Every structure is written in C-alpha cells, then in structure tokens.
C-alpha cells in the first residue's frame, strides 16, 4: 500500500531522443503528416487533433513563435502529468523540441503549477543536461539553423490558468482571465505571436510517435480515439494510482484493475466531468463516449452523492475567475441549491430550475470552466434522483 502505483510502461520502453533524431531527418510537413496519421488528439481534456493544431501554427508567418507545455494540472483527481514529469521529463522536453522544429518556434515554456514547485529543481537539472548534450540550444543535435531552448515558468495558484488563453495571460503577467476565442493561440498567442499549447502527456506521446510511427500509435485505441491514455485513478479503490490503458477500455475494466468491485459511481473527467452510476459502467473511456483528461474518481456505496456535488461546486465557486455572470453567479446558486437539497428543503420545481440554470451555464459561459462546471451536478441529479428526491420527501412530512 505504501509505494504509489505508477504504470507508464510504454514511455519507459522508449529509446531516449530517438524520436527527435528521426524528426530532424524529416521535413516539417512530414513530421506533421506523421502526427496527423497517428490520429492523436490532445490529452489535456479538450481533445483537439494535434496534427491540425500544429499545421495551423506552422502555416503562420514569422520566426517568433512559441511552444508551451501546459503543466498546470489542476483538474481534481488528475495527477498523471506529475507522474510523467517525475519519471519521463526527457520525453516531454523531446516532444516540445519536435513541436518547435515542426512549427518553427525558437522558445519553449513549461508552465508548471505553483503546487508543483518541488518538481522545479529536478526539471531544471534535466534541462541543463539536455543543453549540455546539445538537445537544446543552438543548432540542436547538429541541425544547422535550428535553435531552441526551454524555460520553466511557475503558476501562482489558479485552476483557470490551465485554460490555454488564461495560461497565456498569466505568462504575460496578467490576471489569468480567459480570452475570447477566436483568435486562437496558434495565430495570436504569447505576446501576440503564434503559439502551440499542449498538455504534458500529449507532448510525451508525440515523441513516441516520431520514434515508432503514426501507424504504431493507431494499433491501440478506437477509430476516433487512437492510442493509449494515461489515467489517474483515486477514491474508493484498493489500488489507486497512474495507469496506462488503451482508449476504448470500459469503466468496469478500470474498476476491476484498481480493485473496486462494489463501486456506486465513478466521476469521469474530474470536477468538470460527468458522474456515471453503476448501470453505465459498460461505457468506454474515449473522446466519443466517456471522455476524460485523465481523472477517474471512484465512489463506494457509502458515499453521499450530494456531498460529492457540493465539494465540486465549492471548487468552482472558488476557482471561477469572475469575468462572466453565468459562471460567477451560477456556481454560487447551484451550491446553495445543493445545500437546500441536503437539508431536504428543495422543491422539485426548484430542482428543475437549478437544472435549467446549469444548462444555461453550459451554453452561455465564456470559457470551459463555466461551461463544464454544472456537469457533475447535472449528472448526479440525473442518475441519483432517488437519493435526492428522498430528501425532498423527508422535508415534506
């Protein structure tokens, strides 16, 4: 029980920097072609195709472009990026370097959340070694004219800065308030320059793809969700930890692996994700089905699902940047609603109003935080009506 479980077998099997060396032999178009052929989509949550993003950035003019690695990992229940940075930072930096070559960037920034400050010394040491070995700096790996280096910038404690435009605001020295999109970072990013923002895990997979090929990557996963996914599994289970699974794996299979035979519900995708009751454990982890950036939280039979909803809503009330009304006011209203529910003082009609409010927030919020913050509440209301309606009847007698 004492050693944390970290299964990153595929990353561990890679040869160091073989992907980068292979990339430097190719044209930029061929690198992006290989990425596109793999079908890889972003691992940070939104699931945007990496090849498309890189192509857009590569097509912009100018030489002042940036590659940003999003290591803000703030989604409740997610800790796989920490594990990847601890064990395979070289692979992540390799992926950033490949990205820089492909899109024509000269500077890379790793945006590391403040809570992970303790990782900084070891990451700086890895960067120093890479510089000494000419994997960073002028003429990377002897490739004439390819100059690229990476620096680390720490976040300062704000979940919303994981959203890519808020992250860029923060890098520029501003409050982490999301921007309107478009324009997208690929053309107007850091300091107004074209910027590629990718998740830690995405960049590690990119290095694997350049080493093993897009076809290799596609041998696992589903048609729409190719490859393997690193999941962080916590909550009521015997063996929580970091696991590697092919996309398409069922929730039931995950539960079997981590030792949770009697789970009541599973939260897929963290506080912004959806809550599945046991009747839906046959569903698959994939962009087209039960999507997650890596967070899986297991709830045992003894758990009160309203407390779960309250905990998540508290999180969003705290972390909303406050820029737009649906999110700022909506989350506070939903949290009050959960209080009423748990005291048994919420009428069915008011519950329906709360659900309608949640749907408005999904549609009208400015960024992904507000758009997804009602998900957990709405799915808990939907699937655990018995638990919730029971309390309504308690109040009425």
């Amino acid at each position: 029980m004492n050693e944390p479980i970290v299964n990153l077998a595929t990353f561990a099997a890679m040869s160091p920097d073989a992907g980068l060396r292979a990339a430097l032999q190719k044209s930029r178009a061929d690198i992006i072609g290989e990425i596109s052929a793999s079908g890889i989509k972003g691992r940070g949550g939104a699931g945007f195709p990496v090849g498309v993003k890189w192509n857009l950035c590569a097509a912009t003019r100018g030489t002042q472009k940036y590659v940003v690695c999003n290591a803000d990992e703030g989604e409740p229940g997610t800790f796989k990026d920490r594990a990847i940075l601890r064990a395979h930072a070289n692979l992540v930096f390799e992926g950033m370097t490949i990205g820089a070559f492909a899109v024509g960037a000269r500077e890379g920034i790793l945006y590391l959340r403040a809570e992970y400050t303790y990782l900084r010394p070891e990451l700086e040491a890895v960067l120093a070694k890479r510089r000494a070995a000419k994997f960073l700096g002028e003429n990377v790996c002897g490739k004439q004219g390819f100059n690229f280096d990476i620096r680390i910038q720490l976040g300062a404690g704000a979940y919303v800065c994981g959203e890519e435009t808020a992250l860029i605001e923060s890098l520029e020295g501003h409050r982490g308030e999301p921007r309107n999109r478009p324009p997208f970072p690929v053309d107007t990013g850091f300091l107004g320059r074209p910027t590629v923002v990718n998740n830690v895990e995405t960049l590690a997979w990119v290095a694997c793809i350049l080493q093993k090929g897009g076809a290799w990557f596609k041998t696992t996963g589903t048609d729409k969700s190719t490859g393997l996914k690193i999941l962080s599994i916590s909550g009521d289970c015997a063996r929580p930890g970091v696991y590697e699974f092919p996309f398409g794996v069922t929730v039931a299979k995950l539960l079997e692996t981590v030792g949770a035979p009697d789970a009541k519900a599973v939260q897929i995708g963290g506080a912004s994700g959806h809550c599945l009751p046991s009747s839906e454990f046959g569903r698959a982890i994939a962009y087209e089905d039960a999507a997650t950036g890596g967070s899986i939280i297991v709830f045992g039979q003894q758990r009160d699902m309203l407390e779960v909803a309250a905990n998540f809503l508290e999180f969003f009330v705290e972390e909303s940047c406050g820029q737009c009304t649906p999110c700022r006011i909506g989350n506070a209203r939903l949290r009050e609603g959960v209080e009423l529910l748990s005291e048994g003082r919420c009428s069915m009609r008011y519950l329906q109003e709360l659900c309608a409010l949640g749907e408005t927030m999904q549609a009208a919020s400015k960024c992904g935080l507000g758009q997804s913050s009602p998900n957990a509440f709405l799915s808990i209301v939907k699937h655990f009506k018995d638990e919730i309606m029971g309390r309504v009847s308690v109040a009425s007698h």
Partner: protein
Amino acid sequence: MLVTERERLREEITALADRHGRQRSALIPILQEIQRGHLQISDYAMQVVADLLDIHPVEVFSVVSFYSFLDEKPKGRFIIRLCRTISCDMAGKAAVARQLENDLGIGFGETTPCGRFTLEWANCIGMCDQGPALLVNDQVHARVTPEKVHEILAACRRVFGIYAQEQKEEHAV
C-alpha cells in the same frame, strides 16, 4: 516602515527587475520572489514594482489579488495548505484539519500571532492517490494522519531553534 528598510527593499526589487527584465511578462516571476523572501507583497513593494515596470500600481495589485499564492497581507514563515478536494476529503482530510487547528491554535485562513504558521485550504494538489495531502511551503506530504500532523509541525518548529519546539504557537508571541 523605516526609510532604510524601504531603501533596502527598493534595491532588492531593482535587482530582481534587472535579472528578470522590465517587460510586463516579468511581473509574476518578480512578485513570486518578493513573496518568497518577505512572506507578503506590501503596498510599498507593489509601488516599487509598478515604477520599475512602468505600469500602474493598480495593475500590480489586481495581479496580486488574483492568485492564491500571492498575498498583500503577511503570511506565516510556514504556509500549510491542506487539500479539501473530493479524493482527500474521502481519505479523511477532516481529522487532519481538526488536528492542525488544535495543534496550531488557529483556524483555516489564519496566521499564528507569532507569525510562524499560516493554515489554508488548497484545491486538489495532484496527490489524490495518496490523500490526505498537504503542502508545507513547497514541500508535499502525503497520507497525512492526525499523528503525522504533530511530526510535520515539529519539523517546522525545529527551524526556529530548540526552545521553540514545545511552545504552543499562541503562547509564543
């Protein structure tokens, strides 16, 4: 603040600006170093940073107030941040919270009168498989139990010298 203290702070911040640059994107790295060294970013420090970066002090304040790791009010020498998000909650964070309050004699959001400890809630700190988890400044502690709380605090107190070890914080003013 004494004039000499102010001068020293201005010199220190000028050195930070020389190192990080005076462009707007240097703002947060500069503020982070001030926070680390002084446990707060005072009004005067904000004014100096604004002068050096040629921006309005309100801009600096709005950034300081946005981020939970930057503070205009003084914090303790050790900031303890206990995760209150769901996985740590289910793993028993409530007992750890109570023990921290008991041993420090303060509630969450407070600093001991002696200025040694600040107790705060954190949202998920990425240790959900090993909860309850907390941060003491930059260091992470996993699988914290009420008993371990005592060890963690004792290790902090050792920094203040052996006489400080057994004192209860509220008596140590």
